[in-house]
């Protein structure tokens, strides 16, 4: 508990009434405390994205041998370079790479990989070792130390549920369920789901009108517009809102959102094609939007998943695996491909062996983008010097 919060908790008996402090941060004071305007944007691909069919080792014959049913034909692959290339749905990633704004970190994972969605996400979100259990998220711990006082808009999570990565000692992040329903002063009455139950409708209406730090968000929204058009997917909408908040000078350090549907045990070709198309379109519009606003150097977009998938297919799909590529866009990255191509002949129970620990990526983001010493939150891994 810092001093400012502490003072706010002092009440008085005067007048015969016990005045309690606000319970607790409902009127939380908030203003920008940050000198640097850099921020991180995360897209968490839920379900375990198949890295081998995303950034594809088409030059390795093992790839085609292992995946007779779901390998992507060489002729369809985009941006071929040194035996690697993009899934056709990620056609615009090639453009970003060509412009020098995309870095790909290959074979990212961690020792003793866990193949449970639940646990592996927890590991990624808390930056713990495989056998270690932490209750606070890595970004939450960063925000605790970085924010000198409770700052509700230090991190914005665009999702229907809170994200463990942002959970810290102090509530320094907020979750916005549906930004399109976020009421702005100039926009008309929000629509809320009509349930036929007047009590429920009433509470839902209120639920949508409350977001701590909403004044700051309103301000940011008023200082920006949605003139730059995005596609219709919910990921696109979320990124569009993140871009608006950044353009409107909200000064949040972290934005977080997620995309579901990557657990492709079956019918992988179609599902993956659809998901990656949605991702491609959303990311590419976000990229162009920020580039046009000349904010790309300040913003680092990170795309990751809790694990990759098995090298061999299981018929029409793939089972849970381990290491996978991680994408970094903007933030003045060096636009390179980092680490060797996936080694498909030296596997661990049919899965790739990781080359780069995800915590090294985190350490690099904290150090190079946020000027924060990662060891302060217990991340000891080496920084990747070739990233920024």
């Amino acid at each position: 508990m810092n001093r400012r919060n502490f003072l706010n908790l002092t009440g008085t008996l005067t007048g015969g009434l016990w005045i309690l402090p606000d319970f607790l941060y409902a009127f939380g004071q908030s203003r920008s405390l940050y000198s640097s305007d850099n921020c991180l944007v995360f897209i968490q691909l839920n379900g375990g994205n198949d890295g081998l069919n995303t950034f594809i080792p088409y030059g390795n014959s093992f790839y085609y041998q292992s995946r007779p049913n779901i390998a992507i034909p060489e002729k369809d692959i985009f941006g071929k370079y040194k035996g690697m290339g993009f899934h056709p749905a990620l056609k615009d990633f090639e453009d970003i790479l060509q412009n020098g704004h995309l870095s790909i970190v290959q074979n990212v994972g961690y020792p003793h990989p866990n193949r449970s969605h639940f646990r592996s996400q927890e590991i990624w979100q808390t930056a713990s070792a495989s056998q270690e259990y932490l209750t606070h998220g890595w970004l939450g711990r960063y925000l605790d130390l970085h924010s000198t006082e409770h700052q509700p808009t230090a991190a914005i999570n665009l999702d229907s549920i809170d994200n463990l990565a942002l959970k810290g000692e102090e509530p320094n992040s907020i979750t916005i369920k549906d930004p399109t329903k976020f009421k702005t002063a100039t926009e008309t009455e929000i629509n809320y789901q009509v349930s036929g139950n007047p009590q429920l409708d009433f509470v839902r209406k209120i639920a949508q009108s409350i977001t701590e730090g909403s004044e700051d968000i309103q301000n940011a929204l008023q200082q920006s517009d949605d003139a730059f058009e995005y596609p219709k997917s919910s990921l696109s909408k979320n990124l569009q809102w993140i871009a608006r908040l950044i353009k409107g000078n909200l000064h949040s350090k972290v934005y977080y959102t997620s995309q579901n549907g990557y657990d492709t045990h079956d019918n992988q070709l179609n599902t993956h094609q659809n998901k990656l198309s949605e991702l491609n379109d959303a990311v590419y519009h976000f990229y162009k939007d920020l580039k046009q606003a000349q904010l790309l150097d300040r913003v680092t977009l990170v795309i990751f998943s809790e694990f990759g998938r098995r090298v061999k297919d299981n018929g029409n799909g793939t089972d849970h695996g381990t290491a996978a590529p991680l994408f970094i866009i903007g933030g003045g990255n060096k636009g390179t491909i980092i680490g060797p191509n996936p080694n498909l002949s030296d596997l661990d129970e049919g899965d790739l062996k990781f080359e780069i620990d995800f915590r090294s990526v985190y350490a690099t983001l904290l150090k190079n983008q946020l000027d924060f010493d990662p060891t302060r939150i217990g991340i000891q891994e080496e920084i990747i010097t070739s990233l920024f």
Partner: protein
Amino acid sequence: MHIAHLWSLRLGFSSKQAATIEQMGLKSFLQRSFNHQTDTSIPDFIQDEPHTLAELKEVREKIKDADEKEKKKMLKKQIMNHQELKKWWLDQMINEAFPLREKMIVFWHNHFVSSAQKVKVNYWIFQHHQVLRAHAFGNFKTLTKKIIQTNAMVRYLDNVDNKVGAINENLSRELLELFTLGIGNYTEQDIKEGAKALAGLNLGETSAEYRKRQEVNESITYLGKKGGFKADDLVDIIFEQPAIPYLITRKILQWFLYDQPDETLVKTYGDYFRSQNFEIQPLLTKMFTEAYEKNISGTKIKDPLLYILQLTDALQVKPLQKEVVLGFLRQQGMDLFNPPNVKGWIGGNAWLSSQVYLQRNKASDLLCSGKSLRLKGIKNDDEVEFEISPIDISLDWNHQAKPNEIIRDLADRFLFQTSEEIQKDMEQILKYDFDPKSENAEASVLRLFNYITKTPEFQIL
């Protein structure tokens, strides 16, 4: 929602009685609740306070003559004792095995309103409370007679100033408008005449008493009846009026079952109430058993008291600092013994504003992360200080169950209904491959619970 949990919340303040309701059935549970003895002893902090008018006068003089420091000290003691009274009541709400009486007292205390802020005498507030306690399940007519003749009431509604030659209509008006018939069922003339009958009803030793020299002893016409009436007579006449059962019946329906009760229900139960001679037990039994049969839910927004006691019970918060609960209630607009005005809390949608909702979510965030406020001490004589401190919490969930079973169990206990959206979110928080034996399992289920408490559905019963 599991029906026993729903009714435990309705008839109490948490899910604590769910097992008992399930076991003995609703009818027996009600019977046990009606028969359950209540503690009528006078707690120490009230014993300390001046009781008789003479003692009170003495203390007043003392305060008047005392120096600044002494004055402050004496006033502070009264404030502290008032705080003790709130804690004492809260304690019964939390710990009674059959808390329906407490729930009913909260109802009456919001119907026959008297605010400590105006009355100021702790002993009178306590007496008023004891009348409600004794008659909570008794007879509405008897209770009305008793309660308007408490010191707290004659003081709160200014009948102490209602004397021959200086008539004050306040008590007479509220007796008709807010306590019994409701607007439209009497005339201004009835209020004026009633005030005469009440003139001279002033402070007494154990209850209000008529003072001979302040009375008006003339024949009046009250609701069409002629005679020389006093307080009890007024109530007798009021209870002969056709409209008498409906206002109170509507309010009872609102307090326990529906924010917006159907008027046909008000009529049906009102008529039944009258047929039972305004005995409260048969009315409650009929209302509750019929609603139980109909299995109604989602008809009421939780008041702050139910919200916080359910939350702290679900989390088994230890230690539970009652000062913090009281502070929360105050901030949420439900300060005990201190309703905003003579009409009491409006209830329903009025409980919830975006500020209040946000505060509820913040309280849940704080408690679910194993923290609460703690009274740190009193500084400079009059500043109370709080600090954030760790607490023990423990949520009851089945460590042998599969994630979807844990989700269903929590939803059954805490949400009157779920939606596809909520279901999806819950499955996102507790994924199908969640391992309930893992070291972080507790924290994960707490995150699920925390999510549940913040849904609109959790705000409703």
